[in-house]
């Protein structure tokens, strides 16, 4: 009798790590790649999930909640990230708010829309120029270590962080 253990998916690991780090508030603007995570978050009463109209709002809600004592994370796609540099540069960075972002990377490794490919190329230069810690997760076995480490570092160093979900993690069929 042998049983095949069911492997935890990336989204299940993220949910577990968020809980372990007391990250209760989630704000997001939807994205197809993030859908499995979004479904799990809505289904879990541990999380307060808010769906504002724009990514800037999603950032500011988490920033406000942090200052009032509640940890949060904001989820978005690469094109959404391109709408928030002013909120990062004038709110999050100068006020030293540990905003944790999870960005699903679209526009590379098989993109079919030129606009998505071009906006994707703006993300890392913006993160670098603002000095925002970022890392792209490519493999399932990196998810727990990277998400946990980046959340902990953000809150202990009082600095924002961008956890990027590479298509290598979210689109590649497991070998």
């Amino acid at each position, binding site marked *: 009798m042998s049983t095949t253990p069911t492997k935890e998916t990336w989204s299940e690991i993220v949910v577990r790590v968020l809980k372990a780090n*007391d990250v209760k*508030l989630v704000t997001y603007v939807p994205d197809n790649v993030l859908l499995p995570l979004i479904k799990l978050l809505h289904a879990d009463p541990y999380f*307060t999930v*808010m*769906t*504002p*109209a*724009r990514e*800037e*709002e*999603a*950032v*500011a*809600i*988490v*920033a*406000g*909640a*942090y*200052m*009032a*004592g*509640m*940890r*949060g994370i904001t989820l978005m796609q690469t094109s959404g990230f391109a709408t928030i540099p*002013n*909120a990062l*540069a*004038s*709110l999050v960075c*100068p*006020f*030293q*708010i540990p905003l944790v972002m999870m960005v699903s990377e679209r526009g590379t490794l098989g993109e079919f829309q030129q606009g998505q490919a071009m906006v994707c190329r703006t993300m890392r230069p913006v993160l670098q120029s603002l000095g925002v810690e970022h890392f792209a997760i490519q493999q399932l076995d990196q998810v727990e270590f990277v998400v946990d480490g980046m959340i902990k570092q953000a*809150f202990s160093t009082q600095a924002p962080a961008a956890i990027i979900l590479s298509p290598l993690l979210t689109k590649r069929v497991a070998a």
Partner: protein
Amino acid sequence: MSHDNAKSRDQVKTMNRSGLTRLLVSKLKAQEAVVGGIGNTNFDLWASGQRPENFYMLGSMGMATPIALGVAVAQPNRKVFALDGDGSILMQLGSLGTVAAAAQKNLAIIIWDNGLYQITGSQQTLTSKGTDLVAMAKGAGIAQSYWASDEKHFEALVENILSNDGPWFIAARIDGEKPAGTTERDPVKIRLNFMNGLSAVKP
């Protein structure tokens, strides 16, 4: 208040931002949080006395309401006010729908509307050309959205906010007078004072 509440922008008295800010602050007795948007809104909040429960936003125009919403979500037993100008809220009208959808009981948005981008040389905003912010807030789903007819009515609205559930949206027409001071621009100091004021343990 029912008949006073049925007004539109062109039917209400033009008041003064410094005066109304001081009137609002004088009513706050329960450590209510106030998030001041950028520019003259911020400067007049600063000039009204630096309460530790005040947050002074610098840059990030339009973000006062979502910041206040985040504060309100994290501390549901504290009343939270977002103060902002017409030019600022016009940049982030979706946030009115977000507030309505969240049905955040402890949140009130107060907008000073002089129809001007006053700080950049008094260019006209859309409210000078017919956009009615109270109608927009109502349309976004904030049922308790009102124009303040005059100072007395503004005071009554604030009292109502303090003793009843929101969300609320109040707009006041104001003049083009200069603010009564200038905020000290030290972001980390502002954040730490605010977090101490809210007794927020570093999460």
